[in-house]
């Protein structure tokens, strides 16, 4: 599904060039649930951004579903993000002006899906994450756990082939974190959705079938 070969990424901080990823090799299979664990600053978020086509590597090869990601235009990258990838962020990243329902339907907006159909799909997705009752609420009226469920519904709405979750429980308490992890696990188990979870918490990583550890810009298999 995903193949990263010798991925490097460096940033220019002022005049100093800092290398964040120092040749990452990683393979993710279809239907897998993988945890990427690492201390903060080890480059795991950068890795996720590259996997999610939000950022491009400085060098190395990235194969997404067998296709090279190199030299894709901004439109093509947008298209892949829209159709193949579902993001779940630590800070939920819902749009505060929109209702839960319209937030969930947002990926479909950029496919030109009419509003009626979007809302139908949105309702389905909200039901699936147990938020069907709250479709009318705005993010500000929901708890952290509920917002994250809405965000997961949004990630699912576009029927992606992979969900990338960056510290999805980082802003939640322990009990809520467990619920969210259960949700990911059931999505992976029951619907065969590929999930890549990025976390600093080894406890969460244990709930994934496989986990890799990132140390200082390199992936080490545990």
């Amino acid at each position, binding site marked *: 599904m995903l193949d990263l070969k010798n991925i490097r990424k460096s940033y220019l901080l002022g005049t100093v060039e800092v290398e964040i990823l120092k040749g990452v090799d990683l393979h993710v299979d279809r239907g897998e649930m993988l945890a990427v664990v690492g201390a903060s600053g080890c480059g795991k978020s950068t890795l996720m*951004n590259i996997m999610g086509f939000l950022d491009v590597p400085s060098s190395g090869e990235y194969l997404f579903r067998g296709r090279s990601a190199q030299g894709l235009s901004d439109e093509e990258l947008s298209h892949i993000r*829209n159709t193949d990838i579902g993001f779940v962020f630590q800070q939920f990243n819902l749009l505060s002006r929109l209702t839960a329902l319209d937030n969930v339907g*947002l990926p479909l907006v950029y496919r030109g899906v009419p509003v009626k159909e979007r809302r139908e799909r949105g309702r389905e997705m909200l039901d699936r994450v147990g938020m069907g009752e709250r479709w009318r609420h705005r993010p500000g009226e929901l708890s952290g756990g509920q917002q994250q469920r809405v965000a997961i519904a949004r990630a699912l709405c576009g029927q992606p082939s992979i969900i990338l979750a960056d510290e999805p429980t980082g802003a939640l308490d322990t009990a809520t974190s467990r619920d969210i992890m259960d949700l990911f696990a059931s999505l992976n188990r029951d619907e065969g959705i590929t999930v890549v979870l990025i976390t600093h918490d080894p406890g969460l990583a244990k709930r994934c079938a496989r986990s890799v550890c990132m140390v200082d810009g390199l992936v080490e298999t545990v």
Partner: protein
Amino acid sequence: MILSENIQESLNSLWGAKQRSLLALIGIVIGIGSVIAMVAVGQIVENESIRQFREMGTDVCMVRENVLPGKHGKRGGSAGMSLADVAKVPGQCPAIRTVAPYVNLYSRLTRDGRRVPCPGLGVTGGFRDMFKVPMAEGRFISDLDGYESFCVLGHTKAEWLRAQGAGALVGSDVLFGGRLYTVVGVAGPVLSGSFRPYEINEGIMVPIRLALRLPDRPRIGAFAARMTGSGETGEATRQVKAFFRYTNRMNVDVVGAEDLVAQMERQMRMFTLMLGAIGSIALIVGGVGVMNVMLVSVSERRREIGIRRALGAERKDIQLQFLVESVVLSFVGGILGLLLGVGAVAVICRFTGWEFFVSFLSVLLGVGVSAAVGIFFGYYPARQAARLSPIDALRSE
């Protein structure tokens, strides 16, 4: 993304920053208002000059005593023209066919102890034909009325009397300036402006011989004349000037229909220049205001841009979203400006006595210009938004 949704989105977002949006709009409102007023005034004046010709004919001119002392003129305190002299004009000046001299009176109209200020006119029988005064009831003043205390009520004064509870007006007596007059007729409403004295609507008309004998000794300062030709004021002017110089040693000015139109056009040019200057400055200021609001909006919503990009929005989707927002913003300003402009035109018309109307064209122009301002000044911020890299946008707070 579908346009109607973009528009709804932008209304939501603008409503979220009401104060800022409104402040930014002031410039647009004034700018569009001026543009609309400018166009409308131009059209009104054009209309006005056409109406001028249509209503009174192109062959009317006004002769006024030139009160500035000149080579042949008497110094101030002139006794004015005499009725007899004016009556001689058509005979002595071949270019003039008929004349209508009149005198102005100022007094009060009284009924049941209630008084209103009321201007009056002493008129001849020919006045009616000259100024095309329609009659609602009764008859107009006739030359045969002589010194009789008869009067014709102007439209608004007749309304006032009716509002005071007067029954049949024709045949009743009214008290004007301490004298009782018998009403012989009521004039219908006329469009004022142009050469027409406003007293036709607003005052009362009495026989000129009577008026000239009133205690305050009014004088004939002006008369209207209909020319024999179709509007060549040049020859008529020469003849009338010569006549008065010879008979009264008096200087007169002759103003023809074309002079009046030219005068209106001068006035219009002044308004146009003023409104054009205000409008273009205000539009630039307003446009910069819109740009500012949009730049703030873009920087405040970097995270939103990032989220949208992560969910698959292309650069052009983001650009369109912000462009629509700035167009909507200035469009709202355009609509408010439209109201302001129409209000300004109404004030100008009141002030000049022009007939008020706002054409579809000026509305269209206002709306079009506001949309253009939105696109022009919104393009740069929208481009800034579109150029943000998804990852930078997502990382910002």
